[in-house]
């Protein structure tokens, strides 16, 4: 994946009457990436995609494809093709005619159209389906037709609008891996819009998280998960335990946050933020360990006694086979989420409902959030 920028959003704002759907978003997408626009419904991700495709015009800002300003170019003149959420396969044409439609618009000769369309169908594993009509196909098959139809034109970028939302669970998993391998095979930049963070994390090489028209964070999936830049992103991606506190000590090699709920929290690195500021310590459930309740709390890394440890009572347990999810109630009533892998075949019996425990986390586990 080269660092060659292919798409550039420069200060893009889109307003519909009084509502601002996209608020001053600047974003660069590189060639060959599988990029995902992620966020809750109404966050502006679909609007951004449609502006890239040409179905909306930005109120402010520019969109560049390969360095060219395409902000006002109509959709049929952009080197971009889209797979729509409803697939939009033309019901009155055969599968082959559907796939060849874009080539027909380009003026490609009939014989060459047929050959290239057949090739595209082979690419999406629908070889031989050419003469069929869309109403004879399943939802998943229609999606492949839409894919083939878009890819046959060899666009610079392929846009996908919620590609997996209409599929059932099994098909979804299948299409997930198929789409990623397809993208690698074809080498085209894919941009996908989704509200499902599992999908985004699994498929994309980089994600942009949006909320209420604003760009929150652009990062690789692991960076988004382990190093979120805000409470919103930490909460939106996966689950998290959030503790509010004051930054008391900030040294280059360690820091201490005093939280009301979790007591003092020791970090093994410095934090960029003035002492005395309000910050949040976010700890993922799988990074929390559970211990039987003893007189003295267990010691954690280099942290002083009693740091990064909270006393609690097991309130809920959900056994999921490979792991067990616990909810531990601490002083003040807050429920801490803990995920514990079942390393041995008896691990799920280690703790019972109502049992008193210590929960602890390493000094490197919390992500410190300033907003």
């Amino acid at each position, binding site marked *: 994946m080269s660092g060659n920028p292919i798409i550039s959003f420069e200060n893009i704002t889109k307003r519909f009457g009084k509502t601002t759907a996209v608020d001053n978003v600047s974003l660069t997408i590189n060639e060959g990436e599988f990029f995902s626009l992620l966020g809750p419904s109404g966050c502006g991700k679909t609007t951004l995609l449609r502006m890239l495709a040409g179905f909306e015009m930005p109120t402010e800002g520019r969109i560049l494809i390969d360095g060219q300003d395409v902000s006002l170019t109509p*959709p049929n003149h952009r080197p971009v093709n*889209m797979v*729509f959420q409803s697939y*939009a396969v*033309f019901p009155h044409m055969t599968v082959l005619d559907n796939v060849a*439609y*874009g080539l027909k*618009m380009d003026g490609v000769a009939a014989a060459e159209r047929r050959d290239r369309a057949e090739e595209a169908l082979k690419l999406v594993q629908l070889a031989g389906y050419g003469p069929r009509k869309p109403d004879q196909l399943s939802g998943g098959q229609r999606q492949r037709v*839409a894919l083939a139809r878009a890819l046959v*034109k060899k666009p610079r970028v392929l846009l996908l609008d919620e590609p997996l939302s209409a599929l059932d669970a099994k098909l979804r998993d299948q299409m997930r891996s198929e789409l990623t391998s397809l993208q690698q095979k074809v080498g085209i930049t894919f941009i996908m819009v989704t509200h499902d963070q599992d999908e985004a994390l699994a498929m994309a090489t980089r994600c942009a998280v949006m909320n209420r028209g604003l760009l929150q964070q652009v990062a690789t999936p692991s960076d988004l998960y382990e190093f979120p830049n805000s409470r919103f992103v930490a909460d939106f991606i996966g689950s998290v335990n959030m503790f509010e506190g004051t930054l008391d000590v900030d040294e280059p090699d360690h820091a201490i946050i005093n939280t009301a709920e979790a007591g003092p929290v020791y970090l093994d690195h410095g934090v960029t933020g003035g002492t005395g500021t309000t910050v949040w310590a976010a700890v993922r459930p799988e990074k929390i360990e559970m211990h039987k309740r003893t007189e003295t709390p267990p010691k954690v890394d280099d942290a002083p006694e009693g740091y990064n440890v909270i006393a609690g009572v097991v309130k809920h347990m959900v056994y999921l086979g490979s792991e067990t999810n616990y909810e531990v109630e601490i002083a003040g009533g807050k429920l801490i989420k803990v995920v514990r892998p079942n390393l041995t075949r008896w691990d799920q019996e280690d703790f019972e409902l109502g049992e008193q425990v210590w929960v602890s986390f390493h000094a490197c586990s919390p992500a410190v959030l300033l907003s």
Partner: protein
Amino acid sequence: MTEAVARSRKLPPAPLEYLRRWPIQLSVGAVLVFLYAPLITLMIFSFNDSKANVVWRGFTLKYYVRALHNDSLIQAFSNSMVIAFFSTVLSLILGAMAAIVLWRFRFPGKTVFDGALAIPIVVPEICMGVGMLVFFAKVLPWPQEMPWPLNLGNIIIAHVSFSFPFVAVVVRARLASFNREMEEAAKDLGASEFRALMDVVIPHIQPSLIAGALLAFTLSLDDFVITFFTAGPDTITFPVKVYSMVRFSVTPEVNAASTILIVVTVLLTFLALKFQGSQALTAGHGADDK
């Protein structure tokens, strides 16, 4: 043994299977008898060998022969057919254009245009008839000496005026179920506005175009009041001719002419529906428009 008996017994009607309950069956039956008995008896008695046509006296085809030899009747019939044909073609084009414009665009005066288009549908025929009479008397006198079929022009114009809004309604209903993403997909693949319209929108509304054509044809063929006010003495249509025959008397010849008209209309309807499938009837009603 008991199993076989149980299997052959019919299940009682399910709660919402109203058609299987006798009160509904009775009322539907009664309504069908009410609607069809007069027409069927009219058709049967067209074969009756009796001038007074009160009691059945014997089977004969002579009134059909007489009807088919009645020059003015034949002329009137062909007039009606020609008028209906041209009216349908024009109404279809105008109605489809109006429907697409209203569905697709925002423009100043849209509500006025929409409302104006609805008026010919709602207003009683006699008001339109009066309007046409006045128009062709004072504004656009239609020369009588024009060759056939041009001399039917004023009637054709009148028919189109009240037919095309109906076509527009039918087409608009179908357009409402159009998935906008289809058009966007076509444009995304390189189609211009015009091509997208032709390749994707028009095929979608095709059933409604057929239904609209059928509607326009029937409205034209059927029309009496507006034609009565617009037609001159030399341009008689079939309903107007039958009207003058009826005013004189109830003879089997009128029955014969009427039966021919019924058969033609029914045949056309069946043809169009066969061509379209039963989609045309339930199109726009069902929730299964993909």
